[in-house]
């Protein structure tokens, strides 16, 4: 039983780690689709709502 709990905890921890790493490595569309000629700063919060945190 101890092993099962340990495995579930480990699965959750690894999932959280994957979430942190993948979300950290995430690129936004304005970074991905800008050329060197474009000066893209903060693209604004429009179309995702002012409360959009940059997540989800």
């Amino acid at each position, binding site marked *: 039983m101890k092993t099962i709990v340990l495995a579930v905890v480990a699965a959750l921890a690894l999932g959280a780690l994957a*979430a942190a790493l*993948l*979300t950290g*490595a*995430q*690129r*936004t*569309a*304005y*970074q*991905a*689709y*800008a050329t060197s000629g*474009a000066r*893209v700063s903060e*693209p*604004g*919060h*429009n*179309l*995702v*709502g*002012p409360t959009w945190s940059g*997540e*989800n």
Partner: protein
Amino acid sequence: MARMKFLCDADRCIECNACVTACKNEHEVPWGINRRRVVTLNDGKPGERSISMACMHCTDAPCAAVCPVNCFYTTADAVVLHSKDLCIGCGYCFYACPFGAPQYPRVGNFGSRGKMDKCTYCAGGPEADLGTAEYEKYGSNRLAEGKLPLCAEMCSTKALLAGDGEIIAQIYKERVVRRGYGSGAWGWKTAYRETVAI
């Protein structure tokens, strides 16, 4: 009842990308998200054609069918809209869409790519018409103002037509008859399953 459609007269489109720019400006679309784009076929070769493409607002829309949370709905104008509150950003609509219309604010991993954004036919979203909440999520609602999508309204060569499908098809047919040629209404068979007699 009027059925909204887009029609790009490829014999007139000069790839000026003004429709793209107008769309971006009208709805304050962030960089990297292209609700409308101009694709050039046979670039630099004989028979080159440029087509301005966005969401075609299909009859029996594939995006709406495959959505795992059913976030799409069709208005009485046959405009296909979606709710960003329900969207989970799974990307299935992009797989199903024949025209590549859905866009995502983040591109790297599937897990956190954000809410899908696409052409609204300048008709906003499920929030109250012409409100701030609607504008912030979906852009302006020109249809509610008694106007048509800006991309079509400001097209300098009158290549991009929008509005009642029957009227714009009529305009296009008469153009083709008059000038004696036409490369067809791009995407109409895929989007509307109708035979355009040209």
